[in-house]
Structure formats: C-alpha cells, structure tokens
C-alpha cells in the first residue's frame, strides 16, 4: 500500500542521513517507528514540532547505532588519513613542552579574539530589539549662531516640534518625546515605609506611544492604557522589588517628592528588566502630559511656545515607504515656517536632521546628550578592537609557524624516511596540514573556554555586562569552523612546504639544514611582535601617567576633607524654607570638627546646573557666549577655598539680592569681554532674560575633570539651595562627625534619606573611564608580551637547533657558557633595539593624538621609552636565557658524534 497523502512527508535529508549511517537490517524497523511517531506528533503538536523532533530522533539514532560506514572503509586514502591523525597526535604527545606552548598561545590568542568579538557583537546589538527599528529616528536641531558659540545641545528640541511634525508631515506616524525628571526626586511607598532618592535620569516623562514604539515589554499592565491617567507611573521589575517587595504593585500608590512634578502616582505597569543593550535606561516612566500640565507648577511649557523649552528629546517613527531625505527636508521647511521670524531676529540658523535609532549608541557624545543616552559606545573603539583582535590572531598563527619550523630538525629524519619509502610530497603536506588542523582544533575548543572565563574579568574592567551570547548563534559556529579551517590551512601551509621540501639524502645522512639567514621572515615577524609589545607597554604607561597627573594637579579649590550630604526632598516647610536651611547649616557647623558648611545645586564632578548663552549687559544679542552656571548657596567659595582676584563672596542679605549676585572665574572675564577682574566687578551680565551683577572674580578652578579646558563658570547665589550640602570637616574623628551630622539632619528633615559621599572620591570617579581604558590596555599588553615571548622562544629554539654543532665546536675550543649565551641572545637584543626605533615614533604619534582629548596633559619623557624597553629586555632575556643555557650546557659529544 502506498503512503497516503502528503501527511507522510518526513524530512528527506534526515532519512538520507540515517541510511548513510545505519546498517540495512536495522533501517526498516527504524523508519517504521519513526514514521509512526511522526504521524502521531503531527496530529497532536503540528508539523514544525514533528519535523524538529524527527531530526532529533534521527541524530540520536545515528549516535546510538552508527556503524560509520564512511570510516569503516579499508581503502588507501582512508588508512592514510587515519595514519596522519595518529602520527600527529603522537608527535604532539612526544614534544610536550612545544605542544603545550603552541596550543596555549594559539588558544589564548583565539580566546582573546573571541572575547573581543563578543564585545563588538554586543556593542553592535544596541537597540536592535525594537520591532520598527529602521523607521525610528531621533530629531536633532542644530542652532548655529554666526557670531556666538553654537548651541551645544542639538537633541533638545522643545515639545512643539513633534506635534507640528506629525500633523503637517504625512509620512510621520508617531512622535515620542522624552524628558528627564529634572531635579531628581525622593520616591516613597508609604504603606511599607520605603523611601529612596532617585536620580533625575532614572525617571522619564514619555509620550503615550513610548511602549509601542520601543520594545520594552510589560510584565504586568497594558501598553495601550498604561499612561491614560496623568498620575500613572510605570516601573521596572527591579523597582517593584525595591519598593513593594513581594507585594503586587499594580494599582498601588508611589509618592514622588521634589523636582519637576511631585505628587501621588498610581502604578499602572511593571516592565521586564530592560535589555542592557538599549541606549535608553530608566527605572520609572511618567506620562509627559503630566509634565506639560503640572511641571514646575505649570510653568514648564510656557517657554517660547514649546520650540526651545529645554531637555525634551523627540523621537519619530516614519512610514515604511517614506523617503527619509524627503522627510528631513519637510522637517526643515516646517521649522523654518514656525521659527524663521524669531531666528532672523536673533541671528540664529536652525537645521534639523534625523538620526536612526540604531546609530545612537555608537554615534553620540555624552556631553551633547546630557546623560539621556546611557553607556555611549564609540565606533572608533570598535574598529580599534577589531584591528587588535585581528593582529592577535595573526600573531598567534605566526607563532605556530615559527614553532613548527623550529621543530623541523626533529622531523627531518621522519621526512627523509618517508620520502625514501616513496611518500609523495602531496602526502607529506597532508601530514603537516593534519597536524595544523589538530593543533588549531584543540586550541579552538580551549579558546571558547578561555573566552568564557575571561568575560567576567573583561566586564569588570570595562564596566559592562554582557554574556557569551555568541555561542547561541548558529552563524557563529559556521563562522568559527570556517575560521579554524582557514587558519589551519594558512598556518599549516608554510611549515608543510618547508618540511616537505627537504631532500631525503641530506635528511638521513646528517643534519644539513639551510643556514640561518641574517634577516629572515621569522626575525621580521619577531621584530613586529616586539614593536607591538613595546608600543602597548608605553601606551599603558602613558595612560596611567596621565591619570596620575590629572589626579595630582591643583584644582584651584580644595575638595579634600569635604563630605557632601544629599539634601532633603520630602516633608519640607516651603513657606519658610530659606531660614530653616540657614538654621540647619548653623546647627551642623556647631560642632568642633566642622569647619564650613555650604549648600549648592551641584558639586564638583557632578556637572553644572545649566549651560547657556551669556553676554555682557549692553552687548548685542548675537554676542552670546556659552557659559556654565552652578546654583550655589552662600558660603560656597569659602568652603571650597576659592581664591578671589577681585570683589568678594556675596553674603546672605535679602536687601542686596536684586539683581542676583554671581561669582565668575577668570575664563569668564576673558570670554565675556570684561577686560580685567577689577573691571569685571563693575559690570553686569545678561542671561535667562535677566540681569546679574558680578560680585567677585575667582581664579580658574576645575569644576570638571582635567580633560576639560577652563570654561566660563558662574556661581549664581540663592538662599534656598538644598540639593547638596558641602561640609568641610576635620577627618580625625569621622565617625563622631557623621553621627552629629546625621542626628541634626534627621531632626531637621525627618523622613528623608540620609545619603552622603566624600567629594574627592566622587570627583575622581570622573576618571573612571580613563582607568578602565588603562586597564584594558594593560590586559592587551600582558597578552602581547606573552605572545611575543612565545614567538621569541620559538625562534631562539630554532636557531639553537641550527647552530647546535657550532656550539659544540665552540665549547670544545674553550668557550664559556656565558659567552655562548651572549652569542645566542645578542641577535634578539638587536631585533629588540631595531623594534624600538619604530616603536618610539609610533608611541609619540599615538600619544599626542590621545593626549589631545585632554585639556591638561602630562608631557612625554625619556622614561616612557626606557621603562618599557627595560621590561621587555628583561622578559626577552629570561626567555632566551633559558633556551640558550640549555643549548650551551649540552655535552658537545652529543651534538658532534653523529657526523
């Protein structure tokens, strides 16, 4: 009877595979069983499942019953291949040290490359989870002032552009605006009495379609209705855990205090943990409509009809068929329509562009994004790492070549005998290629283990969290196998051709190998390895030197001995705030260990409050220059010990606060055209639509890391600053001082979280990414030195083998061990010197361009080269020394008697 219907279409390839491996007498029964099960599965679980399980069953049966017909054949090629394999393994086992070094260096090289590839893969995977990825764009609007500085934040679009664009440009489907919760907040779940302070960037106001445009799946709640109420809040799973523990947070109330829009918010959704490879990272989402209506008591949106209100980022989605250039053009036309008049008046040119969401991670600048884009990547880094990975693998293969040829003398007899018995050159090449494949395959397996072990360390160093997800991709395995086969062929061909070219007669009749050339390919490669090692050591040294330099530099202010206390957010008596805060400061200062107390809205290393166009009162509008403003409490210049060049620190005196006093730095004096500090205190400044009087001029200080050049800084004085309290204290009894501060804080501001940090630590945290960079370089350096040492070891072994007779003769004639060691080593020291000739300009070139990232930089000095050279010489000498000593100590009888 014929099989009925198409129901019985079992996967043909699987059937064929089974027939290849299973003996005839079993096949019938197996096919029968398989078909029976297959039909059952189709009717219960569907075809896809049945096909998948069919494959699994087939493979399982093959593993269980295979008689490996292909490998059981007894014809000549098969026997030969089996023989090659056996000989390869025997060879590896025979020379354990060589095999170990060889496999280890290859495995470490490949492992490093794998780790780097995983990193690159992770970096490239950013934001790729969003369904509509290629149609989501971020709007950027460049504001160019022909005379003044350009406005530095192109992604602050204002809230109006999204609305106008959607209604007037038909290709635009949706817009999503984002606004961070300015000022930060204290969030509490009063039922469980849990209160924590949260960072402004972790709380985002978003438009309703946010959860539909971006793929952040909800664990609980509905994406469509999550933001229907203006006082709804969507939180991540971690936050649900933090505020509600095991309780179900849906429908519960979270009280938000402080910042833009305090109030009671109802939880309407719980998000799955956010993917790490997303440029948007947040803990809380609030509806943007809330911000529009209640933000800053309703004042948030009044600025400039919404066309330049700060801190709003706009994303749009466009139709699939839309032409992006056309949309961009239309957007510019639109902006021109609404803004032309005002821009003409102020002399500003505005130009919009659209950035695909997939590009944001690698093509964005943390200074420009103001923190909304988290974990910025850098496409240059990616290229840089790719090149490094490439070189590491190449060098590891070069080492394999060097090591195998170094062993040639041991194989020479084998080759000779094989050739005499009639082996074809083709067969010898197969033999050596098989060896290459064996070594490469073992290394490749080890490499995966090494990469898996290395990833946590690398994560630690570069402060990222990614897993070894590459192994889950079928493409990776295909690629990796191809890569290994290719690598085996590449690294195997050279030794295979060299070794198989030996003449049998010279092989058997005594070791007459080709004379070592003065400068061979091998020493060229070694020089290259030295060069890379030297470069990396110098570069690492330079990175650390720059970090030390930045940390040790005078900042123009004292940040030592300053403890910074985070200010209160909840339960504040707002009617009488200024005097409460003043009383609080007095009470804190009333302790023998406390030297000074001052409030401010930011502290060094934590950024400034606003950056904006500022001009001297009386200058034309288009002369605005960019300056940074810090809202400061009275007494801050004294607490930080700022040095006054003119004027004095303003005191808290209500009669004298209009116009608001500012203290500026020297840089501001130059930038705003105030000629001298003495002259400056006569002048007034104009910004934020208001005038400010200059109360004093201080020497330049480093509010930011030393990577930044001095920029105009303005301390704008207010009595009700309370975000941070800088407390200068005597650190002799920190515990006692802290107890005092905590008790005062709790008595003044009950219900607020008591959080503090030491300013110096916080300030130095700015150098974290530099330290990470240095650590990464250090890692590469260790790797490069290791690989170069292996290469050196291979080469010195090779030359020692070639010169074994020469050494024997020299010994008989009375050469000492030390003179023989010098003889063997000096060649490599020469190569090392040669490499350093190239390394020095390379380091100078790279170092210069790297240091250009820093406004304040350390200089180059001789030790930058002497130190790495010393290290490398030491390592080389010990590598060479070991091998040379062994060669020099051999009994000349052993090496000479064979002739």
């Amino acid at each position, binding site marked *: 009877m014929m*099989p009925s219907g198409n129901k019985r279409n079992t996967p043909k390839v699987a059937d064929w595979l089974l027939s290849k491996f299973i003996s005839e007498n079993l096949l019938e*029964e197996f096919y*029968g069983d398989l*078909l*029976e099960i297959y039909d059952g599965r189709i009717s219960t679980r569907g075809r896809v499942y049945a096909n998948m399980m069919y494959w*699994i069953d087939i493979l399982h049966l093959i593993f*269980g019953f295979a008689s490996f017909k292909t490998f059981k054949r007894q014809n000549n090629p098969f026997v030969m291949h089996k023989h090659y394999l056996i000989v390869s393994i025997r060879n590896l086992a025979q020379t354990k040290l060589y095999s170990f070094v060889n496999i280890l260096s290859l495995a470490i090289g490949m492992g490093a490359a794998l780790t780097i590839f995983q990193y690159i893969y992770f970096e490239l995977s950013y934001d790729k989870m969003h369904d509509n990825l290629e149609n989501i764009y971020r709007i950027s609007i460049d504001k160019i002032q022909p005379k003044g500085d350009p406005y530095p934040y192109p992604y602050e679009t204002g809230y109006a552009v999204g609305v106008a664009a959607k209604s007037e440009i038909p290709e635009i489907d949706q817009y999503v605006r984002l606004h961070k919760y300015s000022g930060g907040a204290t969030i509490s779940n009063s039922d469980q009495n849990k209160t924590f302070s949260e960072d402004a960037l972790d709380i985002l106001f978003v438009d309703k379609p946010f959860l539909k445009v971006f793929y952040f799946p909800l664990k609980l709640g509905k994406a469509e209705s999550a933001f229907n109420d203006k006082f709804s809040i969507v939180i991540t799973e971690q936050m649900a855990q933090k505020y509600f523990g095991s309780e179900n947070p849906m429908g519960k109330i979270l009280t938000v205090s402080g910042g833009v829009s305090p109030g009671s918010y109802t939880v309407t959704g719980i998000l799955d943990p956010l993917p790490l490879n997303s440029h948007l990272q947040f803990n809380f989402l609030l509806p943007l409509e809330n911000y529009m209506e209640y933000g800053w008591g309703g004042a948030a949106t009044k600025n400039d009809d919404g066309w330049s209100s700060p801190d709003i980022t706009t994303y749009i989605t466009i139709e699939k068929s839309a032409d992006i250039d056309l949309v961009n053009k239309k957007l510019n036309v639109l902006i021109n329509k609404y803004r032309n008049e005002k821009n003409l008046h102020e002399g500003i040119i505005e130009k919009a562009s659209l950035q695909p969401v997939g590009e944001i991670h690698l093509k964005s600048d943390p200074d420009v994004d103001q923190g909304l884009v988290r974990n910025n990547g850098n496409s240059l880094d990616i290229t840089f790492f790719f090149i490094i990975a490439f070189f590491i693998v190449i060098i590891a293969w070069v080492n394999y070549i060097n090591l195998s040829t170094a062993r040639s003398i041991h194989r020479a007899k084998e080759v000779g005998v094989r050739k005499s018995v009639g082996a074809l050159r083709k067969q010898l090449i197969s033999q050596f290629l098989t060896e290459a494949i064996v070594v490469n395959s073992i290394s490749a397996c080890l490499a995966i283990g090494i990469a898996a072990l290395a990833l946590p360390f690398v994560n630690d160093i570069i402060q990222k969290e990614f897993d070894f997800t590459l192994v889950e991709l079928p493409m990776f395995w295909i690629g990796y196998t191809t890569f290994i086969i290719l690598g085996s062929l590449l690294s195997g061909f050279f030794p295979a051709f060299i070794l198989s070219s030996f003449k049998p007669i010279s092989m058997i009749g005594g070791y007459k190998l080709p004379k070592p050339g003065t400068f061979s390919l091998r020493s060229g490669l070694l020089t290259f390895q030295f060069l890379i090692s030297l470069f990396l050591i110098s570069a690492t040294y330079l990175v650390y030197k720059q970090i030390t330099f930045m940390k040790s530099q005078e900042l123009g202010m004292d940040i030592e001995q300053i403890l910074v206390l985070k200010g209160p957010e909840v339960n504040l008596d707002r009617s009488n705030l200024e005097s409460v805060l003043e009383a609080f400061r007095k009470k804190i200062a009333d302790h023998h260990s406390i030297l000074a107390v001052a409030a401010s809205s930011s502290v060094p290393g934590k950024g400034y409050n606003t950056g904006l166009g500022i001009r001297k009162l009386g200058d034309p509008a288009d002369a605005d220059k960019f300056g940074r403003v810090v809202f400061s409490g009275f007494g801050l210049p004294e607490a930080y010990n700022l040095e006054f060049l003119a004027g004095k620190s303003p005191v808290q005196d209500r009669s004298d606060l209009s116009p608001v006093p500012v203290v500026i730095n020297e840089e501001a004096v130059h930038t705003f055209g105030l000629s001298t500090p003495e002259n400056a205190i006569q002048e007034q400044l104009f910004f934020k639509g208001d005038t400010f009087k200059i109360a004093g001029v201080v020497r330049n200080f480093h509010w930011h890391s030393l990577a930044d050049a001095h920029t105009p800084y303005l301390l704008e004085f207010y009595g009700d600053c309370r975000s941070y309290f800088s407390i200068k204290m005597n650190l002799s009894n920190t515990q006692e001082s802290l107890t005092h501060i905590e008790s005062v804080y709790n008595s003044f501001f009950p219900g607020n979280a008591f959080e503090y940090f030491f300013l110096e630590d916080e300030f130095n945290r700015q150098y974290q990414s530099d330290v990470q960079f240095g650590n990464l370089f250090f890692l590469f350096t260790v790797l490069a030195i290791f690989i170069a040492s292996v290469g050196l070891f291979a080469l010195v072994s090779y030359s020692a083998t070639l010169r074994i007779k020469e050494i024997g003769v020299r010994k008989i004639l009375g050469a000492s061990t030390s003179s023989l060691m010098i003889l063997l080593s000096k060649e490599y020291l020469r190569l090392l010197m040669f490499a350093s000739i190239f390394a020095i300009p390379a380091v100078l070139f790279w170092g210069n361009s790297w240091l250009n990232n820093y406004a304040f930089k350390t200089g180059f000095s001789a030790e930058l080269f002497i130190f790495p050279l010393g290290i490398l010489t030491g390592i080389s000498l010990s590598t060479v020394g070991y091998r040379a000593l062994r060669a020099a100590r051999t009994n000349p009888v052993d090496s000479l008697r064979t002739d």
Partner: protein
Amino acid sequence: MENKSLGEFEELVLLAVCIMDGEAYGVAVKKEVEKHSGRSILLGAVHITLYRLQDKGLLRSEMGGNTDKRGDRRKRLFRITAAGMKQLRAVQDVRKKMWNLIPQLKFVL
C-alpha cells in the same frame, strides 16, 4: 552475563516488554514507559536499550507484521528470555528484601 547489573532505565524497558507480551516494538515500548514513568523519552534511547538488552541475552527479537501506519514496514518484536525474567526477579527480590528492612516506614508518611 548474569552478573551484569540492570540499569534503572533498562529495568523499565524490560518491564514494558513483559507487559506487552509479544507486542513490544520501539514505539510501543516508548509509549508504555512514558505512560508509567511520566517522563518523555527519545525513541533512540529505547532502541539503544532494547538492543543492549538483546546483546546481554535478556531479550530476543524477530521481525513482525507490517502495517500501513508504518509506511508498509515491518516491526521488530521483542520478547523477554528466561535469563531476562530471572534478572528481573532478582532485582525485585533485592528491593523487596531491602524494603522489608525499613522499620515501620514511619518517616515515609
């Protein structure tokens, strides 16, 4: 042969063959074991075990009737041998003896 101990899965397969009394072939044994043990089993595992038991001399087999269900292919029907029965009993005896030694079975409740 007889000293060879019986694995847990082998025991299950052997029992299933006994239960089916001459109607035991790959898929049927798989279903029977799945039914009683409640876990899902790969066909290959059953076949491997059946053949291993046959090699040990605990099972014997012959090719049986063909059906349309199997695409007109015959099945291999397994039966237990005397040695198999003996081994199975031996296992059972050991268990019984040990169970009896558990005092009162109190703590199992």
